[in-house]
């Protein structure tokens, strides 16, 4: 069906033009670069080769980076979810009125502030000379500083959980809130106990919230480079690899191939979440 051109089509022009010029054309630009002949120190040449992709996908080093990145991203998502779910459940199904929303606001206030400040705070709490070690030493609980929480993957995960918590609590809150009370009564009437009601009613119905939390935590993690650089010690993620290749090594074709791979993973994840997890229904 051919639609009449309305004023609303005209309103869409500036956004369309802007995103085409500054988002879609740049993406096409790096797609072009990703097929060029790579070389460090900006010595790359125009051409057509699959070498960059082959190197990115087959090198032992990048395979390791991809594995570690996905492990950290997944553990962060899981840890956040485990902390966020009981909180969202409490706010949505125990508290009445908009008290829950106000508590979410309370969680959001510190998080709308610069995340480098928060990473800095964690550095000073988890560090070898940090607050926790210091406290434990002063109290005589330990004899020498514990190192496990600093310069490690665990420190990265703790900081991510801190960062991501409200973004997981909020969508979970919305989905849990929208489950009608009748369903619980029906489940109970049909002889279901609390545990099975949770696993057969609450959990399946909150899947869209879990999916959105996944998008908010897992996907940004694939491009994160500041948190591992500041608290992660030797933790070297995909974001660090791309940053180093663009800015330090100066091998744009190779860096572009890595970025395009990241982009493709992101697109597939988002597509699956939108298509199968009922997110659209939630948004409407």
């Amino acid at each position, binding site marked *: 069906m051919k639609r009449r051109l309305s*004023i609303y089509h005209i*309103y*869409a022009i*500036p*956004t*369309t033009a*802007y*995103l085409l010029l*500054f*988002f879609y054309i*740049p*993406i096409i*630009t790096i797609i072009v*670069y990703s097929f060029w002949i790579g070389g460090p120190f900006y010595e790359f040449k125009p051409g057509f080769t699959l070498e960059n992709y082959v190197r990115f996908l087959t090198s032992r080093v990048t395979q390791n980076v991809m594995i570690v990145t996905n492990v950290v991203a997944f553990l962060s998502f899981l840890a956040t979810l485990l*902390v966020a779910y*009981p909180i969202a*459940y409490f*706010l949505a199904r*125990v508290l009445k009125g*908009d008290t829950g929303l*106000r508590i979410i606001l*309370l969680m*959001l*206030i*510190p998080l*709308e*502030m*610069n*995340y*480098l*400040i*928060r990473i800095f*705070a964690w550095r*000073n*709490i988890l*560090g070898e*000379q*940090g*607050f926790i070690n*210091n406290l434990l030493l*002063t109290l005589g609980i330990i004899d020498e500083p514990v190192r496990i929480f600093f310069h490690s993957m665990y420190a990265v995960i703790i900081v991510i959980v*801190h960062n991501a918590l409200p973004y997981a609590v*909020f969508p979970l809150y919305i989905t849990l809130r929208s489950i009608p009370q009748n369903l619980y009564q029906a489940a109970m009437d049909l002889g279901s106990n609390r545990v099975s009601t949770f696993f057969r009613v609450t959990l399946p119905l909150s899947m869209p919230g879990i999916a959105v939390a996944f*998008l908010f935590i897992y*996907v*940004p993690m694939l*491009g*994160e480079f*500041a948190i591992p650089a500041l608290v992660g010690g030797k933790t070297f993620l995909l*974001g660090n690899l*791309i*940053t180093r290749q663009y*800015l330090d090594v100066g091998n*744009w074709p190779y860096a572009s191939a890595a*970025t395009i791979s*990241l*982009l493709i993973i*992101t697109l597939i994840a*988002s597509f699956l979440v939108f298509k199968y997890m009922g*997110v659209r229904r939630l948004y409407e």
Partner: protein
Amino acid sequence: MSKIKLMLAGFTATVITLLIYFPIAVVVVFSFNEGIYFLLPLKGFTTKWYEEVLSNMEFFESIVNSMIVAAMTTSGALLVGVPAAFSFVRLRRNTPFVGFVLLPFLVPWLVIGVISLVFFRTLGLQLSLLTVSLSHIIYSIPLVILIVAARVLSLNPNYEKASMDLGADRMRTFINVTLPLTYPAIAVAALITFIWSFDNFIITFFTIGTEQTFPIWLWGSLRHPTQVPVITAASSLIIIIGSVVVYLLESYRIRKGIGITLLE
């Protein structure tokens, strides 16, 4: 039964205090501490770190630069994004447009940063605060659209019908009725974009030239251990001012019932 509720309440309270507020409280407390490191016991009360920050020109310049970037980003994103919010709602069945607009919102910020860097450098543009804003607007457009569209979606269509019945044409109805009804959402979108742009580090890191914004200044200072007390004081200042602004903003949102868009 109520035991479970009690446990959930306790868990929520513990997490909010220990995981979310405690780290920030530690920074604020230590900003008044005499010592350089975060060591217990506290060494004594001082405001000298604040004096040092307030006389630090780099800090001031970075704050001013961040404000310039945030102001350019906000005006650009509103100008381009607000009209599209109406298209977004009224052409709702037009899914390709929805996907086209939302994509920058879904990709990691790193991707926006590097594609902008490569694009600007390929064009031979000098990296500056302007290029930072141009790259921030990419992400801010969907942000503005989602907030404003949520409001447009909840508007009562009878207002527009009434206006048309009373003889106004489409254009006048839009300007005199529809648009004013969305002002609160536009204000919220503007503030959120401003705060986001002021604070953004990841995209800025790639598209900035020789100037420093506040996050870039922080990133640079974090590498120097002697700067710790100065960063602590600077952070505390931002924390205190930021909390007030964000609290006012969020209460306004709840009062007006705006912006509970899921994807925000």
